[in-house]
C-alpha cells in the first residue's frame, strides 16, 4: 500500500503568525513558535513533521503565501 509523506517550508521571516494554517491542517502538523520573528510574529513551523501528508491545505489558506509544500509517495 502506497503511503504519502509531505513537508512544508514556512518562510519564517515573512510569516505573520496568523495561525490560519494551524487550524487548516488536517493532521495537526503545524504549530506557532514560542519565539517571534523580526517583525514580532510567532511564526508557524512543523511541530509534527511526520504527520504531514502534503495536502497543501495550509498553503492554500495562508494569506501571505509563505508556505511551500512538498509531497512524496512512499510505499
Amino acid at each position, binding site marked *: 500500500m502506497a503511503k504519502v509523506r509531505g513537508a512544508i517550508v514556512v518562510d519564517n521571516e515573512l510569516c505573520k503568525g496568523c495561525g490560519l494554517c494551524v487550524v487548516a491542517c488536517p493532521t495537526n502538523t503545524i504549530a506557532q513558535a514560542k519565539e517571534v520573528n523580526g517583525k514580532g510574529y510567532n511564526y508557524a513551523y512543523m511541530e509534527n513533521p511526520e504527520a504531514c501528508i502534503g495536502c497543501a491545505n495550509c498553503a492554500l489558506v495562508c494569506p*501571505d503565501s509563505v508556505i511551500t509544500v512538498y509531497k512524496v509517495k512512499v510505499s
Partner: protein
Amino acid sequence: MADIDIKDIIREENLVYKKTDVLTDNVMHYCPGCSHGVVHKLVAEVIEEMGIQEQTIGVSPVGCSVFAYNYIDIDWSEAAHGRAPAVATAIKRLMPEKFVFTYQGDGDLASIGAAEILHACNRGENIVVIFINNAIYGMTGGQMAPTTLVGMPTATSPYGRQIDLHGYPMKMTEIVATLPGTCFVTRQSVEKAAAVRKTKKAIRKAFENQKAGKGTSFIEVVSTCSSGWKVNPVKANEWMTEHMFPFYPLGDKKDCEKDPAEDYEKYMKG
C-alpha cells in the same frame, strides 16, 4: 510507516505547492490573517494558469486593497473610491482583447460606488468583479459598511448596527444577480482549504467567461477583517462562519451557462 527524511521530501521534484510567480515578492501590508492576501493569491494563480499575465489589467479600489498593485505582477489602475467599475468599463471597451477585473471592498463597491457597479453590471460590461465583503471599512479604521450585520459593533456603530439608525445590511450579490448584464454571480469564501479551492474555481470561471465575451462575472468573497472586528484571525473565521454565512449564504446566484435563454426571456418579460 516508511521512514523518510524531511530533506528527501523537500526537493524540487516533490514540489506540490508554491507561491505563484504572478505574485510579486513584496510583503503584503495586510494585517495577519487578512482575507485579501488569500484572494490576491487566487487571482494571481488563475492569471498564471490561464497564461494571461501580459494581457490582464487590474483595477484596485480605495480600501485596504488599494495597494493590490504591489502584489499582483500585472499592469494596474488605481481607481477613485467606488469608481473601479467605471474605470474598468473604459479600459475594457478601449482594449477589448485584454482581460480586465476590478477588485473592490464592500465600502467601495456597495456604498459610495453603488451606482457604478449597478450600471456596469447592467450594461453587461465584459469584466470580472471581485468583491471582498468583510462587513467593515478596514482601511479607515473599522467603520460600518453597508454590509455590516445587524448588531455588529464598528467604530461608527459602537453599540452595534441598528436597523432604525443605519438601515439593513445590503446583499449586493443578490441585487446584481437580478441584472441581465451579469452572466455569473456567486458568493464564496476563503476560510478553509475547500472554500479556497471553490473560490479559485469561481475566479477561473469568471475569467473564462470574459474570454468568451459573456458579460459581467461577479464574485463576492465573504471575508474577515480581524483588525476591524477586533478578534484574532482564527476567531474571525469562526465568527464569519457562524454569523456571516447565514446572512450571506454561499453559492452561485446565477450562472448563465446553465440557462442563458430562459434567464434573458424572464427579464424581458418582467
